[in-house]
């Protein structure tokens, strides 16, 4: 998958994101691999690439399977904007009788949020239960005391399924409301106190809250200064 994307070959994938280990959940990245005389269908995001194999990304069989997979996702999340756009893109005919238009579930269980929380946050959320009851949640659906409200989960979600609202200096996510703190430079609210402390412990660098925008500016300033000194 990484090799394909690096070479501008498009393989669709909802549960794949650069920097996150492949998961093989959404099944959209199926490709056909020919190794010697053996042909088989594999998911590109978890298949270990090696020399000498021949990969086809768009056979009729694969396109049809992708269509069916998008159809299945649409039946799950009929009101999701992104999935609907895929349905249009692939010209998929929907068997209306099996469509429950009132279904509100946007989550397609790609698991990216869980991975993001593992690496960026505190493993506050996980995939719970199994089969059709599977979902992403905090332990016992309670407001998690581990969550730091960093929002990494909402950031990586391909279908915008994780509700995060920032209002009046407060952020609400996963049934919990956090106080936001302001950027010491521009004065805008940008991070929760908990996430700031977490990052500070992890990185041990800036000792004052500073938002991404101002951080960029500061770095540019430093760069400029060092450049001036050299010349």
């Amino acid at each position, binding site marked *: 998958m990484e090799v394909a994307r690096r070479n501008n070959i498009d393989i669709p994938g909802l549960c794949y994101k650069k920097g996150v280990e492949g998961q093989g959940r959404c099944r959209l990245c199926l490709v056909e691999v020919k190794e010697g005389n053996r042909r088989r269908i594999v998911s590109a995001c978890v298949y270990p690439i090696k020399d000498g194999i021949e990969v086809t990304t768009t056979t009729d069989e694969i396109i049809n399977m992708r269509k069916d*997979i998008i159809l299945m996702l649409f039946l799950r999340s009929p009101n999701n904007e992104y999935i609907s756009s895929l349905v249009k893109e692939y010209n998929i005919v929907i068997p209306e009788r099996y469509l429950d238009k009132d279904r509100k579930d946007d989550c397609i269980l790609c698991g990216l949020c869980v991975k993001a929380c593992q690496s960026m946050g505190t493993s506050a959320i996980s995939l719970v239960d199994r089969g059709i009851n599977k979902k992403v949640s905090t332990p016992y659906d309670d407001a998690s005391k581990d969550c730091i409200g960093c929002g990494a989960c909402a950031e990586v979600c391909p279908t915008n399924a994780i509700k995060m609202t920032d209002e009046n200096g407060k952020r609400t996510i996963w049934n919990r409301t956090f106080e936001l703190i302001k950027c010491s430079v521009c004065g805008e609210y940008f991070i929760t106190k908990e996430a700031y402390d977490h990052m500070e412990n992890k990185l041990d660098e800036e000792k004052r809250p500073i938002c991404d925008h101002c951080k960029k500016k500061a770095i540019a300033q430093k760069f400029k200064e060092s450049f001036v000194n050299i010349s």
Partner: protein
Amino acid sequence: MVSRKIYVCCGTGCLANNSYEVYLRLKERLENIPQTEVQTLVKSTGCNGLCEKGPVVKIYPDEISYFKVTVDDVDEIVEKTVLKGEVIDRLLYFDTGLKKRLRSHRDASFYKHQHKLALRNIGEIDPTNIDDYIERGGYKALEKALTMKPEEIIDEVEKSNLRGRGGAGFPTGKKWRSCAGYNDFPKYVVCNGDEGDPGAFMDRSIMEGDPNTVIEGMIICGYAIGAHNGYLYIRDEYELALKNMQKAIDNAKERGYLGKNILNSGFDFDLEIVRGGGAFVCGESSALMASIEGNVGEPRAKYIRSVEKGLWNKPTVLNNVETWANIPLIILNGAEWFKKIGTEGNSGTKVFSLVGKVKNTGLAEIPMGTTLRQLVFDIGGGIINNRPFKAVQTGGPSGGCIPKEYLDISMDFDSLSEIGSMMGSGGVIVMDDTTCIVDVARYYMNFLSEESCGKCTTCREGIKTMLDILTNITQGKGQLEDIDLLLRIGETVQKASLCGLGKSAPNPVLTTIKYFRDEYEEHIINKRCPAGTCKNLTSYYIDHEACIGCGICSKNCPVDAITGKIKEVHVIDESKCIKCGTCFTKCPRDAVKIGGMKVEA
């Protein structure tokens, strides 16, 4: 002086029918008998297989077997049989095929056609007593193996052509050889005891009735591949299996078969039990390993096999309970001996759990290559009430439905997968004409929709979509294009899913459409369920010509919906009828007919 041994079956089926009470009562009664007359020994054993007729009590050396024994029978058994060697006729097994009572269970059709390897000791030993196992040749194979070179052991297993009894039939020797080939330590040996197919209980029976044979098989493998640790993953619901296995491990440690420097060979090996959390998917190898590691039980893509990177990313051999039980025999008797049993490419035996609408339900171990007809009609004694045979579902939820046209199929890995079914763990569910095939497919999709791990889209959403469609059909809301949609989605789920569970999940749907398409169409076009299972699509009526007015139907009707004078034609009041089907099965003249959504008469 005469000495008699009395074996009381305390397998799960018999226990449920109070066999432990029978055992205690026998013990109590025999303690009060002066041992100068008759020397006695009472043992509780594992499952004898014929669970339908339990509790089973066997008396040796007379070879007298009693079935359906109750606590009240104990006094008579002690007085007549134990003390005097007399046979109590009414407790003997009545063989419906031979139409007579049999003194020894060995003569019964159910047992006569069997060939017990994996089940060799079960019912003949007390599973909690390691000496019983040793007395019947137990741990002799381990002694022999420890004098062999590891490669020689692998050679022997490979030559035997033993294939994994868990379902897929992967050659065991090949698995061991590739694992032994990786120079990465530590390695692990794992036993899959997470038997979860509805209606399957062969592994349970082995773990409960002969736990030492599994342990012995695993130690031999550990020695052959260079592993020093093993895990037994046993589902938590199997309380007795967990108890007996733990006891066996403890005893084996005491005797020096497990632990450091086994039998002074310098080889160390230890075993630990991991209790499964009750998820069907954890029977899948990579999900099972994830579960042992303490992670969520989800499978991973197996482009790198677990023999290379398995448990904790280390080379691992995982085999099923029944496979392990075969290992000591192969080492002891040699590959050539083992290959003589079964067919070429499918050597040895397979334990099947025979359930459903068959007279003798229970566990049957038969040589590979035995036909389905022999299994259902000779061993199983045919269909209950002699109704017509319709189909069998083999291999649990991942298997397929086999129609009567294939009754003469050889029961082995290759023949079964050729016709779209699979061996699976060996569950055989027999169906008669009152089983609705669409409802069977719906049942399995319902089971799998809850038991899929839910990781990948095709398995999770695909199964749910198929379930929705099948539910519609069974409720009379189906349309003809639904069959095509089922086929299309089924095929995608089969090809695109991540693990074996997803890849095989559509089998029940695809095979039932393949072999019983007309029954699907009958549901959709005529809104009628020919088996009378789908209540929305069923009505009962009485054929005026055939009714003899015997009144049996009205007498048996639980809601008094049938009226009619004796010797006159009876009528069913549809507004009262709850469609239980009692009249249909009770009518001696088959005059009660199954109609569709509307009454046809």
